[in-house]
Structures are given as C-alpha cells and as structure tokens.
C-alpha cells in the first residue's frame, strides 16, 4: 500500500550510499597514501638514530616484534606489529624527556597509557583498542537526522496533489499513515546502519576495529536511534498540519532548531535577554534534539559522561516519537481532498 514511500526510501538510501561510498573512497586514497608509513620499518628508517640498535623477531603467534634500544639515551622501544590487529608499542625512556600531559588518552582506537617508575617512564601505545560506538553513532545520528528531515513529510506530500491516489486504496487512513511512517522509520534506521558500516569499512582499511558497546556507548546507540526518529515525528506532525507548506517546514526546521538552541544559551543579564532565553528554552523543550547530549555538566564546570537522566531523556525521545506520530496520523484522518 505504501509503495511510493518505499520508492522514496530507496532513492534516499541510494543517495546516502553514494555519499558514504565517496567517504570510503577517500579513506582508500588516504590508506594508499600512508601505506609506506604504516610499518615500523618505515618509522625506523625515518627516525633512525646512529646509536640505536634494531632487532627483529617473529613471535609464535605471527607478531612481528621490532626492538629498538639506545643505551646512550636510555631509551627502549618494543613494537609488536600484529597486522590488521594493530600495533602494541611500549616506550621506556627517562622521565625527564617524557611528555607530561599524556597520562591516559583515548582517541578512537588509539589508547595511550603512561606510568612512571622512578627516573623512567613507560608509555604504552595500543593502536587497536576498542573503539567507542559513541563516535560511530555521532556520525550515524547526523546522517539520520538529515535524512529524517528530508523524509518527514510522507503524508503532506500525499496531501499536496496525490490524495486521490492514497485515499482510494483499500486500506484505512490510519493504516496507510502508520505504514508510511513505519517505512520512513526503516529508512532512517537504514541510514544509521549504512553510516556505521561505512565507518567500519573506513577503519577496517587501517586495522580491524574492536567496537565497544558498553556503558555510554550503549546509551549513545539508544539515543542515536531514538532522537532522529523523534525529530522525524515532530516534523511529520508539523508538515501534516501545515500540508502545502511542507517544503518550507523541512527547509527551515534544522536552522530554526539551531537558532532556538543558541538563544537558550543567551546570558540573562537584562529583562529582554531573560525573556528571549526563557521563551527559547520553553520552545526547545518540545524539540527532541534538545535531549540528545550525552555529556552531563558538573557543578565544578567540568563535563562527564555519567548516565544521569539518561532514562528520562530516552523515555522523552520515545514519547515524542509516539505523540508526534499520533498527531500526524490523527490529522491525516481528517484531511479532505
């Protein structure tokens, strides 16, 4: 019954796939460009110090171990190259020469840990640590919100010149509307999935990613799924009510949401600013995207990623999706040609 919506989704996913394919292609170009710098031998050749002795050994599990030792500099480096499984590097050097601001760093799959033992510092670099799904979901969420915005007028598009087609099918109006929204939901989820797959492929070009789904990452996945759907439902309700203005609604939605979000950050120094701030804050409460943030500000001004309020925020997203979706369906049932 919702064949037209299927076609829209197909076309949409095709565009998403093309864009993501371009990203993958760029990653391939990058991979080829840096290929010569990815082996420890290349590094050694590049940074070779005359006082350094280099030895190679292959461990029983196939790991290629390179050991660099510079007695004069009191520096000892062990590089375990596990191919697609990444590299494990242990650098031991005098504390006086070691960086002092890298106690513990996680950037994507790269994990750096530093420990001091007297006058020596040991830095362990692991290039194949687990990758937080949070990063993947940040991109997936972005794509899903853009696609959700584009799709969010399934009923308004019918009202705008095709009611005679959609309302003369042998299904109830409610079923037609729920079907159309359901297909769009699949399209949005498909967009998220395609994005995650594309990112995985990009990373796979360099190493085999080990994804972390625990803690904040699980929450990011849940929020990454719920928030674009709730945003889509909000726009779906708006476009169904404003029917023939649906193009304007979709075009202005994200900029308006952005402006309202910025206005909520206004310092409340005078009455006018306070009024604008409060008005924007109230409006922003109706916007599902206001509840996405995974960061929780603390009283001391720092930001943490504790699960504070996550349950409430996630429930709100689900509730927004259901309520806004129901409003769209309700309106659709009263539409006349």
């Amino acid at each position, binding site marked *: 019954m919702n064949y037209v919506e299927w076609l829209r989704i197909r076309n949409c996913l095709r565009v998403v796939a093309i864009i993501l394919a371009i990203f993958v292609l760029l990653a391939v170009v990058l991979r080829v460009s840096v290929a010569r710098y990815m082996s420890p031998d290349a590094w050694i050749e590049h940074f070779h110090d005359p006082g350094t002795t280099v030895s190679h050994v292959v461990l029983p599990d196939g790991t290629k171990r390179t050991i660099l030792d510079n007695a004069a500099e009191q520096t000892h480096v062990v590089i375990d190259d596990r191919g697609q499984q990444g590299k494990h590097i242990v650098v031991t050097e005098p504390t006086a020469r070691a960086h002092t601001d890298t106690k513990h760093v996680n950037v994507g799959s790269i994990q750096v840990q530093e420990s001091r033992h007297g006058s020596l510092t040991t830095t362990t670099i692991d290039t194949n640590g687990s990758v937080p799904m949070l990063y993947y979901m940040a991109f997936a969420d972005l794509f899903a919100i853009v696609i959700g915005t584009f799709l969010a007028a399934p009923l308004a598009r019918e009202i705008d010149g095709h009611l005679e087609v959609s*309302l003369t099918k*042998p299904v*109830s109006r409610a*079923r037609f509307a729920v079907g159309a929204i359901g297909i769009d939901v699949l399209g949005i989820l498909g967009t998220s999935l395609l994005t995650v797959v594309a990112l995985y492929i990009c990373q796979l070009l360099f190493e085999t990613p080990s994804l972390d789904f625990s803690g904040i990452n699980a929450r990011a996945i849940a929020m990454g799924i719920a928030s674009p759907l709730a945003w889509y439902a909000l726009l779906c309700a708006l476009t169904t009510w404003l029917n023939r203005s649906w193009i304007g609604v979709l075009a202005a939605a994200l900029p308006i949401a952005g402006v309202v979000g910025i206005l909520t950050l206004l310092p409340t120094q005078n009455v006018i600013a306070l009024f604008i701030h409060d008005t924007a804050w109230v409006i922003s409460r109706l916007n599902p995207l206001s509840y996405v943030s995974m960061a929780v500000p603390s009283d001391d001004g720092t930001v943490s990623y504790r699960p504070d309020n996550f349950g409430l925020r996630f429930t709100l997203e689900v509730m927004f999706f259901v309520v806004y979706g129901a409003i769209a369906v309700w309106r659709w049932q009263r539409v006349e040609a």
Partner: protein
Amino acid sequence: MNDITISHLRKVYGTTVAVDDVSLEIPSASVFGVLGPNGAGKTTTFKCLLGLARPTSGTILFGGKPLEPATFERIAYVPERSVLYDWMTVAEHVEMTRRAFTSFDHKRAHELLGMFHIDPRRRVRVLSKGMKTAVMVALAFARNAEILVLDEPTGGLDPINQRHVLSLMINEAAKGNSVVFSSHQIGQVERAAEQIAVIDCGRLVLEGLVDDLKGDRKIVEGIFPDTTFTLDGIANDARVARSDRTERILRLMVTAGANDIAAKLTAAGAMGVRVLDLNLEDIFLYAVSPATATTDIVAKGTTS
C-alpha cells in the same frame, strides 16, 4: 439493482454550498453521465462519493452499504487533474497499482498503455497533460473494478484517444460494471451515457435516461399576429415546463404532448407554429441556463 445510491447529499465549505441536496440512483451495468457548468459541484459530488471529502449531510451507499476501505477494491477513480507522481515512471505507477489492488491486471495495463502510445519507462514529468490522463485511464481500466468513477476522463486527449476512452466505458458497462463520468463535451456524454444527471450551482436540476429526455422534450414555438394574444391557460398546462414570451413570439418548453400543445397554439390564433427537437446539448443548456437556451435553439432553427 443500483450500484450507488446518493441520498440528499449536501457539502458546505465555509459559507459556500458546493453540493445541495443531490440524490441520485446509479444503476449497475450502465454508463451514467454527470453534466454541469464549471464549479457546478460535479467534482465535489465525486469526492463525497469516494470519501475524499466528508459530506455535510446525506448518505452514500455502494450496493446498499456505506463506503469502507475494502470497497475501494471495487472502485476505480480517475480524477479530473493529474494526481500521478512526477518523479516516478509510468511502470512504477503500474507497479504501485498492482500492489494496492488484488484484481489489477498487469498485462491489461500495458496493453492499454500501448493503445495510448505511452512508453512505461518514461517519467511522468515528461508526459503531456493528455498522456497523464491516458495513464490514469489505463490504470483505472486495468483494475477490473465494478464501479468506475471518471472525472473528465478525456481531458487533454486527442480525438482518437477520446474515442478509445468512450469505447472502454461502453465495454465496461457491457461487462456489467457501472461507469459514472463527467464531461464538458456533451457529444461524448450523448454517445456513451444511457442516463445523465445535470448539476448546476450544487443542485440536481435534471436527471433521466438520455433517450427519454430527448424523446419527450421539445420546444413549441408560435408566432402571433400581434402582441395582445392570450394563451387561454396553455402556459399552465402541466406538460409545459417553461414559457418565454417575446413580443409576438411564444416559446414553450414541453415535456410531453408537443403536437397537442402545438394544436392548442394554433387554436389560440398563432399564425405559424413549429415543433423543435432538442438534442442533449439543448437539454443541458436549458437545464442550466433556460433563457439563453431557448433563444439559442430558435436561432439555430432546427425545425422538424
């Protein structure tokens, strides 16, 4: 048996009465023509019929039952304007219709598209108005529907394809299906429809079998020697639907017994009396604009 029964249908938009107390019985196995000037309420009647617009009052029954979603398996509709999706191909429209209706005949749809010389691979946006109409007609007639509601189904079509559409309508009626259609081309209605209804300003002003309407209705015109003639109650005759008097000329629209009325005019002193046949166009014009119609009919001088 009647396929469609419309009882006291009324539709009001704000302060505008689009359809006012229209009642129609549309029989099965027939072609039913709906005529009316622009804005008369034909399309609104169709929309109410199909549930696209909610009637303000009145009832509509299909085979004695109210319209429900499942009823659309039996109804095919061609709107007056294109409702096709510009970005889709014709073949995708065929597929869309196939998926929506169980009785859709895919092969028949392609045959009909071939008859109208439409390439299914083309996108709708590149089709002309007439070709879009033809696509909608092809999809409707491939539905194997029991009831076809066609709003201006020949709009934009060339004469050859118009003839095709009329033939398709007549064939459907011959198969036992009901065809309800509207058209501004009265010649087409006269050719295809067995029964017509004329709607004007939202009201049903005329209804009946085409043959009956044509056979019974005539203009009787008498020319008197001077302007002081008297009618001796002729104008009050129940068979006289309307009388127009212009100086020495009296024109009577009669629904039956034209020769008898003509004899009465002669007896009343008329110097010359003529009985004029009405075609469907005359009947339509009389129904929607009586004064203009009778003048026009006399000017044409279609004397019998």
